[in-house]
């Protein structure tokens, strides 16, 4: 008899997560296509890429608001509040588990339960991505969409260029996060159990 499944991901959260993933994929594909545009090998035709990127950028921002206010008004937000005391040590022990313990068949130092959905490393990276990176990419993206609001000169270089630089660098960080995030999802009871969880909301402990 296996341990009982825990209901961890509410419906609104799963909806947000699915849409967020979908929008991110479109944004990454069109973003790369524009950034490395080449008249000879167009990945996605430039003007089409611009339109798709604009539309999904707006959708992602609206969807982010669902996440942001959802976390304020439901108990899900508590998972993102980092307890500063001893956090570094917890982070380190999780890191140790992923780099060593996991290969020796050790148990994870912070098993998932209703009170602790994220291990310290997840907590840390999710907070950085969701509360620093996504707001930056949304704000800079809106700036690029409405360039009238961007100062023309900033720190001696074009404000538009600086905004773009932020947008592209943060886009890259989020893309890298996505790769790592998807990989780490294979570390569950079975390699696919976490992917099932994001669909039905139930976590399988292991």
């Amino acid at each position, binding site marked *: 008899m296996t341990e009982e499944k825990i209901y961890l991901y509410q419906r609104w959260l799963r909806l947000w997560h699915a849409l967020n993933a979908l929008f991110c994929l479109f944004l990454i594909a069109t973003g790369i296509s524009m950034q490395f545009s080449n008249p000879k090998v167009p990945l996605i035709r430039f003007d089409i890429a611009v339109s798709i990127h604009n539309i999904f950028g707006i959708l992602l921002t609206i969807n982010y608001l669902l996440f942001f206010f959802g*976390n304020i008004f439901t108990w899900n937000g508590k998972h993102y509040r980092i307890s*500063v*005391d001893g956090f570094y040590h917890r982070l380190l022990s999780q890191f140790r588990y992923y780099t060593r313990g996991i290969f020796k068949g050790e148990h994870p130092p912070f098993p998932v339960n209703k009170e602790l959905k994220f291990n310290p490393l997840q907590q840390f990276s999710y*907070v950085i991505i969701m509360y620093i990176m996504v707001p930056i990419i949304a704000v800079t993206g809106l700036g690029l969409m409405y360039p009238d609001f961007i100062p023309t000169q900033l720190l001696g270089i074009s404000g538009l260029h600086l905004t773009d630089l932020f947008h592209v660098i943060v886009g890259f960080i989020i893309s890298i996060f996505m*790769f790592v995030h998807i990989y780490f999802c294979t570390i569950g009871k079975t390699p696919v159990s976490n992917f099932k969880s994001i669909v039905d909301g139930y976590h399988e402990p292991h």
Partner: protein
Amino acid sequence: MDTFKSKLRPSWVVVAILIITIFIIVLTRSSETVIEEKLQEPVKSIVKTDTSSFSKHKNAAENENCLKCHGQSKYTYENAESGKSITKLMYAELIIDRALFYESNHREFKCTDCHSEDYVTFPHPGNLRMETKANCIDCHGGDEQYAKFHFENIDTEFQESVHSAKHSEDFTCWMCHNAHTYKITARTSENIKQTITYDNAICLECHGNLTKYQLLTDKQNPNLIVKHEWLPNQVLHFQSVRCIECHTKKMDDSTLVAHNILPKTKAVKNCTECHSSNSILMAALYKYQVKEVRSARGFFSSIFASESYAIGANRNFYLNMISIVIFGFVIIGIAIHTVLRILK
């Protein structure tokens, strides 16, 4: 709940990011638009001009003989027969704005360098109306002092242009380059925006003004906003590049500004012509700066960094390299981790 105080609330971070962004925008948005507004100011009626500030120019005193009438909206003369003093309005196209003239390329010229000496008499002799006017090449052609401007090549390019082909000799240099106000901007402007505004104003003088447009045709001028509706971020494009970026064809590398204006069907419409690492803007709008900066700093992408920006064209070699390396490490890391997990 006792640990409440020691917990970071992530939503505060978002609020802080928003506040800082708004603060930066409010703090730094200001002066830039003033120049544009000034350049777009409509010509005002010139009534009384303080001429003292122009006296430093070589021929200013002599030119005042002409400009005392042609320098403002009205002129006064004495009717020799009746002895009455008569004030009349000067024809708008015959008014020379001193401020613009003494800033123009031809600021050190005497009026009679280009116009007949007979103009010194008043009333001007009637036959002077038939006076033929010199073109750029008449003075600048074959002149070593002006060799770097390649006037001959400009002339060849212009002869190929739709302006020249459609309107034959009616279309002269003066149609775009007003002899009394024209000044070069691509080599002298402090910033590229200034060049853009100035150069686009030249096109708009006819293409945005039906009366002037119909000097050479009976057709209506096309509505530029409607014609360019296909262009995303239209306003930004109009502010950031010149009309000639898409509407000319570079014929040779010697001239700084292309003069071969293309028929509309041949205009650049493919986004990636500009939005790519091999952006045509490098050989056009940014050509002068690219050449100058490249020789001075050997790092030509800095021109985009300091003055402008176009998605797909602003690529930083080091940033690309770093991102490829990081991406590579992540993939290798994931692969190793996977293998070790399988082997455990």
